[in-house]
């Protein structure tokens, strides 16, 4: 068997190169019987799959059925044309970041963080900011060269900006955990719009984070950076330090 991967024509891999085999699981508002099974097959066929195998179906009641399926996609993608926006600053640990700030900036950086608007879930902002941190990485509060203010949950955008102005913040950290009906987009947009109308958008770094946030989305919404799941305090702190150094030293 030849095993030559063509990056311009990539397909899912099941157990043979380019077999296009994928696992799928979904629910349909159909009955749990042969007719329902056929509906699931037609759905996948319409989506462009072939060699469709509905390997499991289960009655979810109230007229719904769950399906598990395997099928082959015919679609291929060209991976040579992909350009992803990612935060590409170097990631330093706490001591390295502190040392970097001491040497290159010479003063402490001030950060104000909050879960804004409707969001009541502080788990993200706490993981980044709290002294204790998360998964063996201390939070920003612990850094020698950061003054950190964690305002907690359900902070109106206005109050966050007020606090940021009051303490002369270098960066604002916003966490959004709840994403139902794109509420996080609305909240993040609101903050940026108010910041712009108050003329403070360019006076500090605006950084957002949360499980459904990517750097690309953040840029699109007008932020300087976005951190998704798997990001730690070290990612955020390094970015702030390096970016502030660039700005302060006009790089």
């Amino acid at each position, binding site marked *: 068997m030849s095993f030559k991967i063509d990056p311009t024509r990539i397909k899912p891999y099941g157990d043979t190169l380019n077999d296009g085999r994928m696992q799928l*699981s*979904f*629910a349909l508002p159909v009955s749990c019987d042969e007719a329902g099974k056929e509906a699931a097959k037609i759905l996948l066929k319409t989506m462009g799959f072939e060699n469709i195998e509905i390997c499991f179906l*289960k009655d*979810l*009641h*109230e007229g*719904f059925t*769950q399906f598990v399926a395997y099928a082959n996609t015919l679609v291929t993608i060209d991976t040579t044309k992909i350009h992803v926006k990612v935060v590409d600053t170097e990631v330093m640990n706490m001591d390295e970041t502190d040392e970097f700030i001491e040497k290159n900036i010479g003063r402490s950086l001030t950060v104000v963080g909050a879960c804004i608007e*409707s*969001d*009541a879930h*502080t*788990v993200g902002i*706490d*993981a980044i900011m*709290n*002294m*204790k941190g998360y*998964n063996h990485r201390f939070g920003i509060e612990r850094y020698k060269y950061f003054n950190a203010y964690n305002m*907690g*949950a*359900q902070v109106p955008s206005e109050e966050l900006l007020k606090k940021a102005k009051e303490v002369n913040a270098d960066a604002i950290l916003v966490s959004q955990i*709840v*994403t*139902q*009906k794109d*509420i996080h987009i609305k909240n993040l947009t609101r903050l940026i719009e108010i910041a712009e109308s108050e003329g403070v958008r360019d006076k500090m770094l605006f950084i957002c984070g949360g*499980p459904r946030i990517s750097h690309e989305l953040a840029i699109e919404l007008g932020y300087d950076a976005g951190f998704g*799941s*798997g990001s730690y305090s070290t990612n955020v702190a390094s970015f702030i330090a390096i970016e502030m150094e660039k700005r302060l030293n006009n790089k």
Partner: protein
Amino acid sequence: MIKLNIPNQKINEARQAAKKITTDLKWLLNEYSSVTIERTILRLLGIDGATADGTPYPNVIVDYLKDNHLIDKGAAYHICNAMAKTHKSAQEVAEMIISGKLNLTDLEPQANEKVFQIIQAETQKMLNHIKKQKEFREKQYEKFGPRKKPSLYVIVATGNIYDDVKQAKAAAMQGADIIAVIRSTAQSLLDYVPYGATTEGFGGTFATQENFRIMRQGLDEVGEELGRYICLTNYASGLCMPEIAAMGAIERLDVMLNDAMYGILFRDINPKRTLLDQYFSRMINAYAGIEIQTGEDNYLTTSDAIEKAYTVTASQLINEQFAIMSGIKHNKMGIGHAYEIDPDMENAFLYELAHALLTKELFPDSPTKYMPPTKHVTGNIFKTYIINAMFNFVSQLTGQGVQLLGMLTEAVHTPHLQDRALAIENAEYIFKTMKDLNQEISIPEDGFINKRANEVLSQASEFLSKVAEQGLFKAMAEGKFADIKRAEDKGKGLNGVFKKSDTYINPFMDQMKIELGLV
């Protein structure tokens, strides 16, 4: 049989410290009331509705009483005095006040005997209704048999109460015993209870009396069909704890999240306000036969589950003592804890087992509520599914009362229909196939699990005695709980706390205390 070996004396010491912490606050519970307590009284008098701009009538009336310096005598007296004068119902009196047709400031006091006759009649009327709801629930259990143990608890959170009903019915048919309707984000900080049905909520639906009624009806229907009583849960928390408890009592909810300290620590609600509100809300729950659940899982979502395990135990014991003060019996005390240890850690499962056994050992008669892993689960739904299976395993082995089912898509989205079905299938498989395994296993006294449980209890006991020494408010101000500092005179809702006058009356609380054997 699987059982820990913990000296009784050690348990008693911890419990006594918790008891001192709570009884030292009796002065607050006896001498003060709050705006939401007064609004609850209005609701129990039958006052409902909202103005065109959505302000609930109970809020309008209580604000009116407050603005006119009438509140310290209690809302019940003023409404019933007006009823004596006008011969109208409480609802009509409220409407007259709101429309400006009735001014309470120049309303002369009617004959005391007459006013108190009305107060008593109105109190009995509502309490009889609540008693009937309680009896109905008990009859359903007689008819259908008791709830499974552990019970299968799932949430619905579509934001539309009618969609919620559909999903809840499906979940019940799949095997769920308890349905929790998640509240809209941020309701906890509203100092009023929204009015009417919710069809476009964020992260859930509002806890409103109408939503309660709609869901109750749906679950009663599906319960009859299945031959099982399906429990309905909501959240008596935030700035309106007793109002939500009262609405739940009226509409026959069965379970209420109802923590004594959660609002203070995790929502920055004023400590006095929360303790007052939890006292009356829990009394209403006790009276209505509603099972309360406490929120100790919150201590572990940001702190380390091993290092801070003792804070869970300490909070459980404090919650227990506050619940006892409100007349809640152990069989309605759903003491909370959670499965939140880092799954990549060696022997994490042994720690979980030790902690779960400790909770069960401390509260053998309680329908303890076990919360699923959330902190360390990622979008890897396959691994999450395994972790949830282990979580179910611990629950079955240790005999927990209520299992809040973990979803394989935790950390991804609010549960889809099939996520919930898979969670139920997972739990049913474990609970069924390991049903009597706990009879076959014993734990060595000098083994890791027993030692660990003893260690956590010792830490909790030591912590509680320190708190008992300095007092709860001082300890909170110093950040002893969850590393969060909460001052007695700060936080949301403080301006809704007031000192009662000598003639203050809360007839519902007075009567409940008598019937619950608290006086």
